[in-house]
């Protein structure tokens, strides 16, 4: 396919106005769109299926439809019954708020903490910098699941500011361990070392403090990477499941993903309800994405993630 595109451009340079060229161009364009549309279907079909199913109120019909392409067609009795089921069954709003709060705070604090560390690594001169950087890069490869159980033992023995010991069943047990994050530091670091140094040097000569420089010069210059890290972290923790399951029990603090388990982990599975729940986890993120998508993609693109 790459060839076709390239050929198309190649011909442009040779004989842009001939009839043969025009026909060829149209055919290639049509092929192009055919491929793009086919791929669109591939990327969209599970999402469409989820949304359509969520609105089908007849559970038997859902099970029959899944055996064919009718699974993608909204027909038969449609309505919001599955969504009502979810709301009747649990305080969905509470779960939603918990997820938004936990993820929001983790992301915001994470941006500050990790970008500051990355700034020190990228721009300041201090002994041990290279070792710290190497350690942080090595830490990227430890997946959270691998240390989940020791972490559970640990947080259970940590004191909290109100004098209690043990962090279980709280918001902060879902937030604080995940603020500092090696991969975020790495992404910030990558971006910061690519920034020009002259502004900074001028500010230093003017006697500005390092924190002022970080805040007034580096942060404004680095919006794309902040956005990228925020997006990545948001998506990751929005979907986190194992940890909340281990450390929380009360609906007052549990996130959406665990809430969904009350439907998915319950046999027989009621697929209509599950899909309604799944849609409600997905749609807010999709809407945010659609609203900001241009900006969203550009920030990833210009954040230097590309290396």
């Amino acid at each position, binding site marked *: 396919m790459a060839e076709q595109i390239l050929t198309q451009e190649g011909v442009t340079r040779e004989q842009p106005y001939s009839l043969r060229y025009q026909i060829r161009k149209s055919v290639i364009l049509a092929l192009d769109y055919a491929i793009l549309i086919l791929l669109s279907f591939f990327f969209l079909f599970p999402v469409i299926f989820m949304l359509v199913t969520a609105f089908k109120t007849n559970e038997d019909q859902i099970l029959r439809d899944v055996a064919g392409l009718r699974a993608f067609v909204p027909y038969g009795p449609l309505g919001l019954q599955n969504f009502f089921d979810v709301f009747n069954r649990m305080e969905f709003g509470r779960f939603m708020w918990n997820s938004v709060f936990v993820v929001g705070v983790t992301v915001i604090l994470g941006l*500050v903490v990790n970008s500051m560390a990355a700034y020190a690594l990228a721009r300041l001169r201090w002994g041990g910098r290279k070792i710290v950087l190497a350690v942080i890069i090595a830490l990227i490869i430890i997946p959270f699941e691998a240390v989940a159980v020791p972490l559970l033992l640990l947080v259970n023995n940590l004191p909290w500011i109100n004098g209690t010991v043990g962090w279980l069943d709280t918001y902060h047990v879902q937030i604080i361990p995940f603020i500092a994050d090696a991969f975020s530091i790495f992404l910030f670091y990558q971006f910061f070392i690519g920034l020009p140094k002259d502004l900074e040097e001028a500010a230093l000569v003017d006697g500005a403090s390092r924190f002022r420089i970080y805040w007034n010069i580096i942060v404004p210059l680095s919006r794309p990477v902040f956005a990228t890290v925020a997006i990545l972290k948001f998506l990751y923790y929005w979907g986190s499941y194992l940890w909340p399951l281990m450390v929380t029990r009360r609906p007052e603090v549990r996130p959406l993903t665990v809430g969904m388990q009350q439907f998915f982990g319950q046999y027989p599975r009621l697929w209509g309800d599950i899909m309604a729940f799944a849609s409600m986890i997905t749609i807010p993120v999709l809407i945010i994405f659609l609203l900001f998508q241009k900006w969203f993609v550009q920030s990833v693109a210009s954040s230097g993630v590309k290396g």
Partner: protein
Amino acid sequence: MSKKGLLIFAVLAITTLILSACGGAAATPTPEQAAGGEAATEAPAAAGGSTVTLWFHSGRGAERDALTEILGNFADAHPEITVDAVELPEGDYNQQVQAAAVANDLPCLLDFDGPFLYNYAWGGFLTPLDDYVSADMKSDFLPSIIDQGTYQDHLYSLGQFDSGLAIWARKSYLDAAGVRIPTLDEPWTRDEFDAALASLQALPEVEYALDLKMNYGRGEWYTYAFSPILQSFGGDLIDRSTYETAEGVLNGPESVAAMEMVQGWFQDGYVNPEPAGDTDFIDGTAALSWVGHWVAPDYIENVGDDLLLLPFPDFGKGSKTGMGSWNWGITSSCPNPDDTWTVLDFMLQPEQILIMTNANGAVPARSSAIANSELYAEGGLLRLFVQQLEGGYAVPRPITPAYPTITTAFQEAFDNIKDGSNVQDELDGAVDQIDSDLEENNFYQ
């Protein structure tokens, strides 16, 4: 960004910290706190009575509603005790209890699937109920409930109900296929059952002769529903005379023959290996449904007078079936076990039991409740379940702290067997897993 921006940012960060601290303080009734480590923090609750924390698995809708009703009745009868009930997803229930046990964060009253009791009791986080349960009360319970709740001569748990497991059938199908209707005294033999499957499969409306509820997925269902087949062949999950090895039992010739038969059912196309839904039997596309009491309300409503409840076949050593269900225990970390018993005692009143069993179709745990149950009293539609439980047809799952390992190993083996793996190899593998766990834990002595 300006100074103002910095300020906003700082305030935001600090506010979130404080907010999360508040959230934490409000939602952290750690055992220490609940135990009243500091008298001052305890004051408001102590004045008005005590709070009993309770965890339950999120069962079916009707079960949840019944529990809510029972707890409502309790609140009316005992205003001095507040029950704080938390619902946890069933799929990972045991894991959540384990995590809480590690963290010493268990509630006072806990429900759990029967055979997990032994591991919990061995781990030391349940308190025996012997002092609370009178001899009269004990004798009113089904013997299976007492057996299930007893570990090393102490009674640790009681349930509101026991389970029944059998075969549901349509009389019209059996008649059409010319299959005899078996009874508990005269169950199908293996040959009869084989023939029945073949002739039922031949009926035009039948797609699958046997519905094994494979849509429940890998989990406790496998062990609960299919280990009775081992026992009917003369095999078992573990050597129950010593509880020190599964060698020669789970992988002995009897167990292998049993699982090869089951594998044959899948290979012959009698069983739908992954039904999308739960309705094969109701829809009439499956002829026999190998499942427990919990489908009763659904099946009775949809199949009506045509519905039959039949015992499992006798594969050589008699008709065997499963038993055991979710039951309640009091944790050893509970600061107010007496109040907790008050709650449990209330839940175990025959009237309250009937609220539950009328909703979920289970076998009431107490004789006095059974007598008042339309479905289970003498002549009731589901009387077979009671007969199975009282007559020794129902075999409890192995009474050992190794149970979580045993069931995981068997589930894995079963999953692979149904997909066509070599039966002997799979059962050998399960035995190796079980035996190494036993050895590692010094046989749970």
